């Protein structure tokens, strides 16, 4: 629907080298509960990426091909240090594998303390480094379904850096596109500055908590309207992959 020819690949197939990143033009890390999120959302899968796939993934990202992380995929990218991705060095070995200790953004437990499923409105941040998203002209309407989607930063300066470097990709807004300003349930999880998604400085790695894949047809819209499809996000990123 978005123009690509997707293939579902198990991480064990990548680990075994049976399938390689280089065969593909775009990577999507989908939602779910990798390893049951038993040590925190995405943490254990992030370790897999770092231990087994670091080199291939680094090459993929450095080549400018797009990477999209949705929900658990976003949590994984953040916890693996790929988002927002500044300060990443081309180190390898044990040190690099545990370098996540100095992250300054995270996705943590929702402010209300529990998993929540509800539809939200998203606005693409106008100046975002993920400039392929600029072709999305309207709001995106799609559900969140998570317990650990509360985007937080270690201090004000980290937030300022994100904003200044235009690494915010999506924010939670109301039906008219006005910033949520922390108001629940428009901002469903307490994220700082209503941040729903971010990108890396090169703009090719993008992550967001909501699920655009659950609104690709108008009939899925609980308000019976048309437009504001999550599909537009996939279209935008696929068009970058093929350009």
């Amino acid at each position: 629907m978005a123009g690509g020819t997707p293939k579902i690949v198990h991480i064990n197939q990548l680990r075994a080298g049976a399938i390689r990143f280089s065969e593909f033009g775009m990577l999507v890390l989908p939602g779910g509960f990798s390893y049951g999120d038993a040590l925190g959302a995405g943490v254990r899968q992030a370790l897999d990426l770092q231990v087994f796939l670091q080199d291939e993934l680094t090459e993929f990202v450095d080549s400018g091909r797009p990477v999209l992380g949705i929900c658990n995929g976003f949590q994984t990218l953040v916890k693996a240090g790929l988002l927002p991705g500044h300060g990443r060095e081309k180190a390898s070995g044990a040190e690099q594998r545990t370098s996540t200790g100095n992250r300054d953004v995270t996705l943590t437990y929702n402010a209300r303390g529990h998993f929540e499923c509800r539809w939200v409105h998203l606005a693409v941040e106008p100046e975002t480094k993920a400039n392929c998203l600029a072709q999305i002209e309207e709001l995106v309407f799609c559900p969140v379904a998570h317990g650990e989607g509360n985007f937080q930063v270690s201090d004000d300066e980290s937030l300022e850096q994100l904003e200044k470097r235009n690494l915010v990709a999506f924010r939670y807004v109301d039906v008219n596109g006005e910033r949520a300003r922390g108001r629940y349930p428009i901002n469903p999880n307490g994220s700082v500055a209503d941040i729903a998604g971010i990108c890396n400085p090169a703009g090719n790695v993008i992550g967001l908590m909501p699920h655009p894949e659950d609104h690709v047809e108008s009939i899925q819209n609980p308000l019976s309207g048309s437009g504001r499809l999550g599909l537009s996000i996939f279209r935008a990123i696929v068009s970058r992959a093929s350009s």
Partner: protein
Amino acid sequence: MTVYRVEVTAKDPTGDFGIVAAAHRLGVDTLQSCRKSRLYFLTDHKGPPLATEQIERLCAALLVDPVVETALISSLPENRPCDINYQLDTEADEQVIEVALRPGVTDVAARVLEQGAAEMGIHGLEAATATQFRLTGVLSLSELRRLARGLLCNETIESYSLGPIEPPFGRSSDARNYVEQIPLAGLDEAALSQCSSERMLSLDVREMKEIQSYYEEIGRAPTDVELETLAQTWSEHCVHKTFKARIAFTRYGPDGSPYPTEEIQGLLHTYIQAATEKVKRSWVRSAFVDDAGIIEFDDKYDLAFKVETHNHPSALEPFGGANTGIGGVVRDIIAVSARPIACTDVLCFGPQNLPQEALPAGVLHPARVEDGVVAGIGDYGNKLGLPTVNGAVIYDDGYLGNPLVFCGAVGMLPKGAHPTAPQKGDRVVVLGGRTGRDGIHGATFSSAELTQATHVESGSAVQIGDPITEKGLIELVENARDARLYSAITDCGAGGLSSAVGEMGEELGADVELMDVPLKYPGLTPWEIWLSEAQERMVLAVPPANLERLQALADLWEVEMRDLGRFSGDGWLRVRYDGRPVAELPMKFLHEGLPLPRREALYHEGGPDRKSRPTGKEQGRTSLNERAVLLQMLSHPSVASKERFVRTYDHEVRGGTLVRPFVGPHMDGPADAAVLKPLGTWDNGRAFSLSVGINPLLGKRDSYSMAVSAVDEAFRNAVAVGADPDRIALLDNFCWGNPTIPDRLGALVRTCQGCYDAAVAYNAPFISGKDSLYNEFDGQPIPGTLLISAIGIVPDMRHTCTSDFKEAGNLIYLLGQSHGELGGSLLSHLMGWEGGEAPAMPNDPLARYRALHASMLSGLIQSCHDLSEGGLAVALAEMCFGGRLGAKVDLLTICGDGFPNHYIQLFCETNGRHLVEVAPADAARFEECLAGLPFALLGEVLPSDQVIFTKGPDRLFQLTLNEISTAWKGDSKDEASN
């Protein structure tokens, strides 16, 4: 050997308000704040010594989120402070309670941590987890213990410590090759009974005697493995003795005169299966034969549906009980070779506001049960990536000691993809989780009543789930099915391997080696391995030539697979341990040796106490404040919005949820049913609905009426969202008390008779069902509860309907007649009225549902809502609230009879009724569709926020949307509107 302790705490010092509020409810008013920390214990006793640097690396990579958390690492001294000697330091600002899982209870986080450590090159690490609660406030030692027992720790699966807890590593023990011979020869009835109860076999004297005489004949004593196998296979849970028993049933009319006694040759056969055979629907693919019922979806796919209960485990350990309830029913779907695609849940709890002092000993507070059950359902369904889309929650005093947890699952499979015939020579393969001592005696436990002591005695019957292992099973079995690698499949449920292998090998016989079963820890005796109900396991019959390909798939999905033996073809069950036989039983005796019981059943129409029963007319003389009653109904916990916890379930995943639990412009109005479009079928417009009918209040009044009303409710909910009334299949779940007591059984019989009559009248087959009996606490039965779940085909996903009013100026119609049926109604319950007529089956219900469905397909219906608890008034209020629109209706127009007072029209719960909204331009066509059927034009949708009830020219009362919101949703501020 070193043990490291890592304490991970949030930087934000706010703490957990929920715990403080719950502590106050528990009567510990002085608790001011509570901070929670995660504890990890890491030890190297199995591997090379751990270095501090490695612990730091583990913290950085896996244990601590550096942005929001801090960690405290310590290595534990040899002599740790121990709870027994705990000295309360009353001067301290802060008290500490630490809680850990008991050894042997599944600790998923510890296992994931061990794997992760190995991935980082730290091998041989052993991990355990715990939780620390740091409490401030003036707290006495007894208050601390009360908090621990009543709130923070469930001693069924956890232990707690005041102050630092002992690292909860299990002690390893050696394999136990120990098989006991149990001499039964010469034992009298009393001794046989004693043997049954001491070993928790739940077999009665007749059954024990049958076993005794079998072994006398063959001249030896049974082994413990054999006796346990027989007890499981013959348990109420596995064989449904009550539903197969011959019953002498006597019914007494309202005047006390008996009808002729009926001889019933099995309830299942006489009523439930008989209805399915009578209606003979061609689209039924499998009814009552497999682990789930199966119907046709479209020309490529079938749908499987199953609902199970997990009541007793949920009473003891609500999170684990509900968690494994979902896990179990999802495996029933995997066991018919279907891919699970959705979950449902129906819950019955005691009153949430029960004062602490009214709580019987040995019972968890209903609020704690609800919290745990809801979290357990969400945890499992969400982690499996399944939408939890439909259900109900009922609150009643009768569920205080014995809550009900119904878990449902739907799956989809390609037509003809489910193989069911194991072949001689096939291997007996077990897939999935490892076997531990968890869940021993689940089948016999669920066939016994709960008592105060049950919490202490039955700990091993309760389990914690591991949804990620089950996710692997789902994917693996789907792959194996598509590659046609197995010839039969079943799940390891109650009775564990004994039931799974015993049932699959019923015709052929099976020969298995227990040493080959992968264990979580050593020390299990052979019968424990054989009986364990450890979760997330499936048993497959696999032709030897396919083993290698199955193993390759198992490796990809990281699912453990073991070959235990073969289907032998000699008709015997042979179980070995290390080569030595520990059980040898002919399958014929195992499956056919059970002497079917004979039971007596009595039923008094209108209840045994008929004198206290006022008639409908007498009730009619009372006058009441309808406005206040309506608000009271809307805020009644069984009616009020369940949004606070339904939103903790993912109802969107897989992208196919078209009618959701909450509807309307603010997505907070109630839905009648869910509509789902399965992934992989978007090339056509077909979808399906899931709905339920349940009304235990009515069951207290009239069992027969409960059954027909539950069928009608499930039906009208399905039709209300767009299902075709000629394509609806039903599931029955009976939760009842002790069926050996004649009046309990009598009510069950009468309910089954109602099920039969309703299924035939609605032309709808039962495709699957389950009974859960012995739901009693200290001799008090739960209200006999029938759940009807319905799965219906929605022919066109563009023509579904929701309950919220859409546009001011549209017309409001009431379909169906109303009668003065207040028996068992919510109104009677609130007023304390005991009598009254119970709702009857409507006349020709299918005709009106077909007409409604046809007008829906023609696009004539803007909104539609069924009338159930609280009748017309509650339904109208919900439609107005959902759509944020007012309405004006005139009660004088209602079709029907027996209205000595207008509250009957407002609140009666007559079956077969819907409220529908129709645009004025469509009114003529709509009325044409309904020609010859009872319906009335009641009023219209208003642009205001007023909901107005009139009777002719008289205005009876009105209320505002805000008042409805306050009562129904529990908040005065309309949060969603900004």
